[in-house]
Structure formats: structure tokens, C-alpha cells
């Protein structure tokens, strides 16, 4: 059955990885819009990574001569109040938004899912206490929550990541808990207990792989929200401190000059819109793919 070079464990992992890969492909293919979302998002990520190469000007370089200029050949998206090139700031700003978003969601995904897993698995009092806390945090306006945390801690990338992940943990806990409770009732879990498996093994080895799709879909959808929240916080004035370019901050400055230089607010707005929309497309398409009820059935 096995060739001598492969241990059973290796065969197992190869088969499992192949299954995951084909599962992903099926999911993407069943809903073509998710491809669009993925491609768009990846384009933005590539642009952010290649910022030093792509940006035509130094985003921090001020110019007294060319302040508040509309789009020209040299400054494709115009300049802001300090004469800085909007396009370059836009590309560099992508880095901030994406970094904060990805880190915040990554942290929230791990912590939130574990919390939801534990609550759903153990049930009873543990569950009630955890979920009541999560429910209250969940209902708390996430922007306000983020606002308060950042105000207390001070605006830096780390603190922004903390603030945003704090608001994202309860939804992940929720989204991990419901399928955990459903799967816990399924007989392969009970079979595992009859076979003498420990709770830890059941939670991490059996339940977690089965709730991963839901968590990942949530991840892509919340990444969109995280980027929105980061922009909102920057708009209020609690984003990463200037002169570092952030999209929200750019819109804020644009808002102050809205009556005469509307392009300053327009371009970063479009940028946010594209990123958030592509992530929504991606997450939505994936979610339709994995939820059997929403598939094309009659």
C-alpha cells in the first residue's frame, strides 16, 4: 500500500492537502465572482508590496509650488495641501491599511476562534459566561470600541492592530461557536470519546478542521470591515500619526478642502471602495460556495 519512502503520516498529509486544494478550487469555481474579488485584492496587495517601485514620487516630499493642484501629467492624482503627490501617498497608504487589516484579523481569527471553540465545546456555565461577554462586546458599536481603545493607548500601528482585533474577536467567537456546537453533537465526536480521545484532541484535531471553512470566509469578510474601521479611525483623527499616509487620513485632509479640491477625497475613497468591495466579493462568493443551503437547489 505505501511505497517505502513515505510514512503513513506523510501519505495522510498529502491526501488531506490535495483534498483541501481541490475543495478550494471547487469553491472558487462554483461562484465566479469570488475569482474577481480575489484577483482585485491580490492586485492591490502587489501594488502595496511594490510601493517603492510603483510610486512616482516620495510620499512625504512636500512642495510649496504645487499645492492643491488638480490632476496633471506629473501628478496623476493631484497634490494635497502640502504639495505631496496623492498617487504616491495612495500607494504607500495601501501598505498601512493592508498591514493593519491583515494583522488585526489574523490575531482576531486565532483568538476568537479558540474562544468560540472552547465555549461551544464545553457548553454549560463556561459557554454562558463567555458568550454573554462576547454578546455585549458584539453589540457595542465596534467603531466606538475601537475609538476608545486607541484613545486610551495612543495611535500607533500596534495599538491600531490591538484595537481593531479587539472589536473583531467577538464575531469570530460567535462564528466558531455555532458550528462547534452542531458538530459536537455529531456522532464522530461521541465516537471519539468512546474511543478514549482527550478533549484537546477532539477540539483541535476533529472539530477545528471542520469549522475552518466558516472561519476563513468570515476572515475575508472581516478583513473588509477592518480596513473600513481603520480608515474610519484615521478619518476621525485617531489613525497612524501624520505624516505617514493613510487613506482615512487623506480623506480627512480632503474633507477639509472639499469645496475646492474634491479630488483629494475622491481618490482615496475609490481606493478604499475597491479594496473593501473586492474582499466582500471574495468572502461572499466563498460563503455561497460552502453553505449548501444557498447553493443552486430547488
Amino acid at each position, binding site marked *: 500500500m505505501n511505497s517505502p519512502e513515505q510514512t503513513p503520516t506523510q501519505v495522510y498529509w498529502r491526501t488531506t492537502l490535495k483534498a483541501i486544494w481541490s475543495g478550494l478550487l471547487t469553491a472558487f469555481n462554483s461562484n465566479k465572482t469570488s475569482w474577481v474579488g480575489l484577483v482585485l485584492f491580490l492586485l492591490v496587495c502587489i501594488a502595496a508590496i511594490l510601493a517603492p517601485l510603483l510610486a512616482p514620487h516620495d510620499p512625504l516630499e512636500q512642495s510649496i509650488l504645487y499645492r492643491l493642484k488638480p490632476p496633471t501629467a506629473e501628478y496623476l492624482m493631484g497634490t494635497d495641501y502640502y504639495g505631496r503627490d496623492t498617487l504616491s501617498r495612495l500607494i504607500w497608504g495601501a501598505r498601512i491599511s493592508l498591514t493593519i487589516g491583515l494583522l488585526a484579523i489574523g490575531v482576531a481569527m486565532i483568538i476568537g476562534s479558540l474562544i468560540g471553540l472552547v465555549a461551544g465545546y464545553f457548553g454549560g456555565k463556561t459557554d454562558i459566561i463567555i458568550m*454573554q461577554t462576547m*454578546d*455585549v462586546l*458584539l*453589540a*457595542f*458599536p*465596534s*467603531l*466606538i470600541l475601537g*475609538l*476608545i481603545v486607541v*484613545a*486610551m*493607548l495612543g495611535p500607533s500601528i500596534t495599538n491600531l492592530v490591538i484595537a481593531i482585533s479587539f472589536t473583531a474577536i467577538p464575531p469570530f467567537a460567535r462564528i466558531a461557536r455555532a458550528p462547534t456546537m452542531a458538530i459536537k453533537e455529531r456522532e464522530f465526536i461521541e465516537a471519539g470519546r468512546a474511543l478514549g480521545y482527550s478533549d484537546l484532541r477532539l477540539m483541535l484535531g476533529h472539530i477545528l478542521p471542520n469549522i475552518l471553512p466558516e472561519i476563513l470566509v468570515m476572515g475575508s469578510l472581516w478583513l*473588509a470591515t477592518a480596513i*473600513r474601521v481603520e*480608515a*474610519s479611525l484615521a*478619518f*476621525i*483623527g*485617531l489613525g497612524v500619526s501624520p505624516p505617514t499616509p493613510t487613506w482615512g487620513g487623506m*480623506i480627512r485632509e*480632503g*474633507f477639509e478642502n*472639499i*469645496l475646492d479640491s*474634491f479630488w483629494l*477625497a475622491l481618490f482615496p*475613497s475609490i481606493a*478604499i*471602495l475597491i479594496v*473593501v*468591495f473586492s474582499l*466582500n*466579493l471574495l468572502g*461572499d462568493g466563498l460563503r455561497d460556495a460552502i453553505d449548501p*443551503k*444557498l447553493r*443552486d*437547489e430547488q
Partner: protein
Amino acid sequence: MSSFVIRRLGFAIVTLFAVLTLVFFIVRILPGDPAMVILGDQASMEAIDALRARLGLDRPLIVQYSDFMVGVLSGDWGTSLVSGRPVIAEILKVLPATIELTLVSLLLGALIGIPLGIWSAVKRNRLPDYFTRLSSLIGLSFPAFVSAILLLLVFAIQLRWFPVISSGQGTNLVDRLRDLALPAINLGLIMAAYITRVARSSMLEVLSQDYVRTARAKGIIFSQIIWRHCLLNSMIPVVTVVGLYLGILIGNSVLTEIVFNRPGLGKLIVGALNQRDYTMLQGMMVIYTLIVVVVNLLTDLTYGLIDPRVKYK
């Protein structure tokens, strides 16, 4: 039914206490001495100590806690460090504006979202469905302040249909409506996007249920099936989402209030943060907590109204 209501009420009260306690500790436990944060690094030790005494931060924690709780319950939420006026008065001054905006936006969102979601579900995978899904997805992708700015640009600045600055305190109805229009449309459309999606997926789920199959086997006309059998059943998740997103709505109202320069809780809290108005901040957190708990309670009670099975849980 009454035991259900009592149970939920009791629960809400307990949650309120728990969260207020949490608020109390958060404000005190976060890094950085509040007095120092308020006065800045350059302040002298005497000034800091004086402020701490004035804020009551030098007393034992238990005393502070009981003072806080008693204060909250009796309506004494402290005095604003910036304006000198009672916090609760400041909050009550702007609360009606926020509530007005929230409720109107919610109504708008529901009036647009629910029928659109249902229509989209019934015409599944055909043109109306694609159109609705796409537009709701786009609607969701706008950060509230972006859409607010766009609305402002187009309708207020270019077309001059609505005032650029709305005070929210117009004397006659027409003025108030004009002030309310753009902010409410902004929030309402975002709300509609969320509600459309949830109404659609909920209706799809209900349509695939066995009892709908039974109704069809009874020969009931399709429109009556939707109206009698599906509508109420599909509203349950919608109620959940509305309750949940009420929080988002209140958050988004901050952004809308800033863009349209409307008075409200949002502007108040941003102001308090910027000016380090410590007691105001505390009061703000209390009011937000109250709102959240009340919304949760109302959501739960609504379930009890719609779903007869809930009372037996």
C-alpha cells in the same frame, strides 16, 4: 409569557451591572494615570495630585466603585472637565438627535431592505437577484464617511438640494426633515444593504423548509404562501441582525455626524477623546452600555412575540 419577560428583564439588569463594572475597571486599569494623561507630561506633581483628588482617584477602589454605581443609578454621572456642566445634561442634550437619526435610518433601511431582500429571494438567480446582490454588496463596501462625503458633494454642494451644514434644531418640520435627509439617507442605505442580504438569505432558507412544501401541496397560491407562511418566519434572523447592526449604526452615526456637522453622541465622544474629558468619557461609555443592553432586551422580547417556541426554552 410573563415569566419569559421577567426572565429577560432580569437578565438585562444583570448584564447591565456586569458591563458597568467592566466600564469602571477599563477606565481605571488602562495604562497611564488618567490625571497624567489629562494634564500631559509637563505637569507638576502637585497639579497631578490635585487633579487626582478632584477626580476621586486617590480613594480606595471599593469606595470609588460604590460611588460610581450609586452615581450612575441616581443620575449623577459627574461633571465634564471641559465645560463644567453635568455630564448627564450634556448627553441628554444631544441624545434626541442621535436617536432621531438612528430610528429614521433604521426605518428607511427596513422599508427598502426587507421587500428588496424578499423579492430577490423569490426571483432567485434571475436578473433582479443579481442586481440586488451586486448593489447591496457595493452599498456595504462604502465606509460610512465616504458615502457621506459623496452625498454631500453631489446633493449639497453641487445640486444644492440640501443644506451643507445641518444643525438638527430647525423649528418647523420641513427644516428638520431637510436637515435629517442626507444623514438619514446615508445611514439608511447602508442599513438597507445589510438588511437586504439577511432578508434574502433568510427567505431562501425558509423557502426550502418542509412546511413550505406542505403549503404548496395544499394548493395555496404562491403570493399567499410568501405572505402567510414565509414572512414572519424569515423575519427572525432579520430581527437578530437589526439588533446587532444597531450597534454598527450608532458607530457609523459618529462618522455621519462629523461629515454633516450634526450634533449627537458621536461628536460628543470624539470631542471628549480629543480633549481628554475623562468624566465625559466615562459617562459616554455608560450611555452606550445602556443603549446596547436595551437594544438586546428589545430584540429578545421581539423574538418572544414572533416565535411561540421561544417561551419554552
